[in-house]
């Protein structure tokens, strides 16, 4: 295990535009990271740079302080789990898990306790004697993961969308087992995914990527509550954050003619900047007091079961509000209250810190 430092690393395939823009990134030892973003955002390129499949066109890759930029994949001591499960079909589950250790000359007596420990972590203890041929897709993926976990000395464990081929119903269970196993083995894990839920469930820290850049890195709560830009705000959460065109009202910022926020932060951006107020659908509430709040009209309500999503028009802008089922929704005209502590201000798409 080791700290991985991407020092001013960037990459362009064939000298054109950068698939991954130059940046300094550190992955601390023993933590779990998720690289989150749509396809083509550069997350797979970054993973390949860490594993050594791609040599970055700029910068250095430091593992535990040693320059590994030109060290080939096989000598980097990195374990990887791919989208598609890779198992040796002719071998038993035990032999599959034991394989990486046998390759390093361990004999059966030495490796048995370690293999049994990993099988137990993954909940596969009863399957050890079984042939890998007859496992289901999710069990095979667990075995692939187990082969990565079984070596205690790997510098990092890389996972490239490991749940892609797993039946949606099995995903939650598999997610739990992987997370619990990771928590016990404390490898440095870099997990690539395009699924917000997966990233936020797994990782100590999520790196949201877009167009070759890390646009925000932080814990799940941080991403949810303080999205650094409007893209992250829309991408995280369901439904995404509301962004309303804001205006300067006196010395304050607001919209629909109602001042909501002090303009402290906004005073530093040019007047021409596109100002938006961001608020999460679950942080908005219907105001029961007839005087308070901003007038709105209900367009339609979507019943999701435990929650209702209300689509409203406020000053000719569309806003979504998410409330619990028991909340009574006024039909037609309504008033919405905007709690000041939940409002975020964005200028040209970027969060302004007050």
């Amino acid at each position, binding site marked *: 295990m080791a700290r991985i430092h991407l020092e001013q690393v960037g990459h362009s395939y064939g000298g054109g535009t950068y698939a991954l823009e130059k940046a300094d990134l550190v992955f601390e030892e023993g933590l779990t990271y998720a690289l989150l973003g*749509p*396809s083509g955002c550069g997350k797979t390129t970054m993973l390949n740079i860490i594993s050594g499949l791609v040599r970055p066109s700029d910068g250095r890759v430091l593992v535990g302080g040693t320059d590994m930029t030109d060290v080939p994949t096989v000598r980097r001591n990195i374990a990887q789990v791919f989208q598609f499960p890779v198992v040796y079909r002719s071998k038993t589950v035990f032999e599959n898990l034991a394989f990486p250790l046998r390759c390093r000359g361990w004999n059966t007596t030495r490796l048995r306790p370690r293999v049994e420990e990993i099988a137990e972590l993954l909940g596969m203890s009863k399957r050890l004697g079984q042939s890998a041929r007859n496992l289901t897709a999710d069990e095979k993926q667990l075995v692939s993961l187990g082969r990565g976990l079984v070596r205690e000395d790997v510098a990092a464990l890389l996972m490239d969308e490991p749940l892609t081929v797993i*039946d*949606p*119903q099995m995903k*939650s269970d598999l*997610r*739990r087992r992987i*997370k*619990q196993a990771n*928590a016990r083995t404390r490898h440095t894990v870099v997990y690539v995914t*395009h*699924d*917000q*839920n997966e990233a*936020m*469930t797994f990782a100590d820290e999520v790196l949201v990527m877009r167009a070759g850049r890390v646009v925000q890195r932080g*814990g*799940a*709560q941080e*991403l*949810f*509550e303080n999205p650094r830009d409007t893209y992250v705000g*829309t*991408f*995280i*959460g*369901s*439904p*995404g954050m509301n962004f309303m065109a804001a205006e300067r009202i006196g010395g304050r910022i607001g919209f629909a003619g109602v001042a909501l926020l002090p303009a402290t932060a906004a005073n530093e951006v040019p007047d021409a900047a596109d100002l938006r107020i961001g608020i*999460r*659908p*679950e942080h908005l509430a219907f105001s029961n007091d007839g005087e308070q709040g901003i007038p709105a009209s209900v367009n339609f*309500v*979507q*019943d*999701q*079961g*435990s*929650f*209702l*999503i209300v689509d409203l028009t406020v000053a000719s802008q569309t806003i979504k509000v*998410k409330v*619990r*089922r*028991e*909340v*009574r*929704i006024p039909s037609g005209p309504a008033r919405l209250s905007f709690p000041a502590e939940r409002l975020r201000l964005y200028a040209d798409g970027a969060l302004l810190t007050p």
Partner: protein
Amino acid sequence: MSLVVQELSLVRNGVPHLGGVSATFPRGQLTAVIGRTLAGKTTLLRVIAGLQAIDGGMLDLDGRPFGRLPAWKRDVAMVYQQFINYPHLSVFENVAFPLRKKRLARTEVERRVREVLSTVGLADFGKRRPSAISGGQQQRVALARALVREANILLLDEPLVNLDYKLREQLRDEFRSLFSTQEHSVVIFNTTDPAEAMMIADQIVVMHEGRIAQIGKPADVFEAPVSVAVAEIINDPPMNILAGRIDGDGLLLGEGLRLPAPPRLATLPRRAYRFGVRAGELAPADEAPLVGAVTFSEVSGSETTLHVAGEKGSVVLQLEGVFVMPPGTRIGVAIPADRLFVFEDDGEGRLISAPAAIGGS
């Protein structure tokens, strides 16, 4: 005017895939069929489409039986889970294929294809090949090809399951308006996601182990699931089910969890039951009868799901907001006794008492 299936049965290799399925699917309405994987949802659609032979049962549309017609004479359109398109044809030709097959006039084909492509937001993609567009767009092509026919029956087999989370959200929002053009069609939509089913359907059919467990309006199924299985299927995360009993001292749940019996339950016979409570109706509390350790916390959209294992029972909580709770954290869980569902304590687990319906649309 509707599609009626009666007593459909299908057994293969000793496994019952459909065990006497009867239902009515009205024209102009969207029916969501919800159930776990292998509940028989896909088999039901394939039987209606004529892609799967049955052992017994009747299919009829507007009073005319069609069970003996081959698939190509049934006028059924279908969208698959995988993004299935004709790889050798352009997007435009993919959508035009069923119309050309019907030998419609060239101008008519052009007009309808253009119209439906712009409805699904692919107006500028007609010349591309399916391989040159994203997964979400491929699924829109499949959808367009199904919509363009204005077929009698439109079947969708978990069409959103393989799409990215955000894309799923977006298409789910668009679905109602997409299907509004199909006012004369029977639309059947398979899903495993309760929120999806609740949001888009006029009618919900719950399938469990090859049989229909409940049919009803979305809110009715959600408020009063007829059995333990339905209660689990129609809630995400699945409803917490705890074994227990009602006795002289009130309610006894799980391993010695005592709750006072609310008036609604106090009058029930004193015996064993199964109790259900929605994950979203449990709340963390300092002074709580149930205390346990968090084994796993999971983020789902804007909510966080906590799996809590306690000495007196294990439950799943759904909390608003996104946060991380490290495994091992001990928390108390308040169980609102008046929100408990009571089910029969047997294999079927029939509903005995449901809490008062709350809100909804």
